[in-house]
């Protein structure tokens, strides 16, 4: 179908793709990434389908800015607030990174809810995707817990009393509440250890859980495919016609063929 390539061009392509070939032969990673990026999705996906990727992007922003903030933040009751002021007022672009982390947290939560709304309204939680809905709800809860633990870290009056109130709200849960509250505050009363405890939860335990759950979430998305919108004329669950895999080179995406292909590459 394509023009015959000149020998020189072929050699050039082989040389350029050699590193990718090298990696692929030893790891199979290139094929995996290509499978992930160029998998088929329904032809009538729309902008609402990007909310999940947007949430993931917001999370990645939180990861990067959080790691940078941890360079300068001191989780010590005596110096925590001073280090926050140092980040905001003294360090070059510290105000920007802290601002991104602070506002990005809200963006992350809001996008999670919007994504959840999209999934609900499109009926994308139905068979066989129920498990992914459940993982999504766990992600929501984990994300909210990340917000709770992060809120204490500036260690000003708002942070302190908001945390007191949040822990006491947990304390009012029937039966287990009092124990949950003691566990969160590390004792009967809020002490100096709470800050380090929340810092550790905020930057080690909870993000780890989030990353693991996001991995599972994406695995299920790739395995089960993306749903068509409810107004799609395509019958749900119809298998696309079998066709031979197109010849591909490296990460370069094949030219879309003109006829008869259902679906298009994901963004």
């Amino acid at each position, binding site marked *: 179908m394509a023009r015959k390539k000149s020998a020189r061009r072929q050699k050039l392509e082989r040389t350029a*793709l050699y590193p990718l070939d090298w990696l692929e032969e030893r790891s199979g990673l290139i094929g995996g990434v290509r499978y992930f990026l160029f998998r088929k999705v329904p032809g009538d996906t729309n902008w609402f389908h990007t909310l999940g990727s947007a949430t993931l992007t917001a999370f990645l922003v939180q990861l990067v800015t959080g790691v940078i903030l941890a360079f300068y933040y001191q989780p010590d009751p005596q110096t925590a607030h001073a280090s926050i002021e140092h980040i905001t007022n003294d360090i070059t672009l510290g105000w920007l990174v802290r601002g991104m982390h602070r506002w990005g947290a809200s963006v992350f939560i809001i996008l999670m809810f919007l994504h959840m709304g999209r999934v609900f309204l499109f009926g994308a939680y139905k068979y066989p995707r129920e498990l992914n809905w459940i993982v999504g709800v766990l992600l929501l809860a984990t994300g909210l817990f990340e917000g709770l633990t992060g809120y204490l870290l500036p260690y000003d009056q708002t942070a302190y009393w908001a945390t*007191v109130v949040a822990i006491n709200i947990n304390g009012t849960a029937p039966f287990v*509440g009092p124990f949950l509250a003691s566990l969160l505050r590390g004792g009967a009363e809020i002490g*100096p250890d709470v800050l380090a405890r929340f810092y550790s939860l905020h930057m080690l335990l909870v993000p780890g859980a989030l990353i693991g759950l996001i991995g599972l979430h994406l695995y299920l998305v790739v395995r089960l495919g993306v749903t068509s919108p409810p107004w799609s004329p395509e019958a749900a669950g119809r298998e696309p016609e079998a066709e031979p895999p197109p010849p591909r080179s490296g990460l370069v995406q094949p030219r879309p063929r003109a006829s008869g292909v259902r679906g298009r590459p994901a963004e």
Partner: protein
Amino acid sequence: MEPRGDEQPKLPPPSLWPVGFAVGVVCLLVGLVVSWVAVAIGAGLVLIFGFLWARDVVAGQREVAALPPEEPAPQAPAVPAHVGEPEPGERFPRNKFLEAATLGLGGIIGGIVTVPAIGFAVLPSFLKQHGHEVDVGPVSDFPEGQFVVATFLRNPSQGEISRRTAYIRNNGAVKGKPSFTCISNRCAHLGCPVQPGGPVFDDKTKHVKSGKTEVTLIPALPAAGFICPCHGGAYDQEGNRTAGPPVRGLDRYEFSIVDGRLILGNTYSVASVEGSGASAKIHRYELAGPGQHVDGPEAWLYPLQPPH
């Protein structure tokens, strides 16, 4: 990335140039510390030997490509597939034993590692949670019938975070026994600090030595009782809830008098108080967290409390 028909690994051809390349890198790095001349020499070596190495690799690739693809790979002698394999359904006892041993040992090792770690993470929240007594100064600093706002460190070794406030009123002596009302400022809704509903006389602030720290005493006139700034909970002067979301009255401190000084002890929870001052009847319960009922059917939701 053409699909390759053969399953032969493609080894690069032997080449000695990488040795020169490595020497060049070392020379360059050492030069960064020692002198710029060495850096230049190292960089030159890296470039020259890198080029030679790359040429070798490319030549090797060309040779592989030039091989006639039809050349049949030497066939390995066919091995009967079933030799050495058990019959379907049969299992070696040793197999099972090894499986069980791996899982069992893994479980034991995991337990040995995990149990202390989880204990370390969880138990400190529930053990050694004893209260601290606080000396808030001589009884003479508490005029009869007046509220005093006492601010102190509950546990000086923890520093500022243990700063607490109590509203203390001297009720005078009843049958020779002194009586005090010591109300905790922790709101019974969600734990915010309640404020006196009336003037606080900052100009009459007193600082009293208490061990290595100081207690601040400020006279106040909470004519409207106590009010929480967070969600509007309101209490009367005895700590009874009068309005808003709190589920019970304000907590109180136990008190004792030692050598003429007022000592605050543990806190306890109060459902409500009948009467006032020294003659008040206090419906007293074990300390519960804010927002938790201590009486009535709702209290059944909180049958157990962690140690306070």
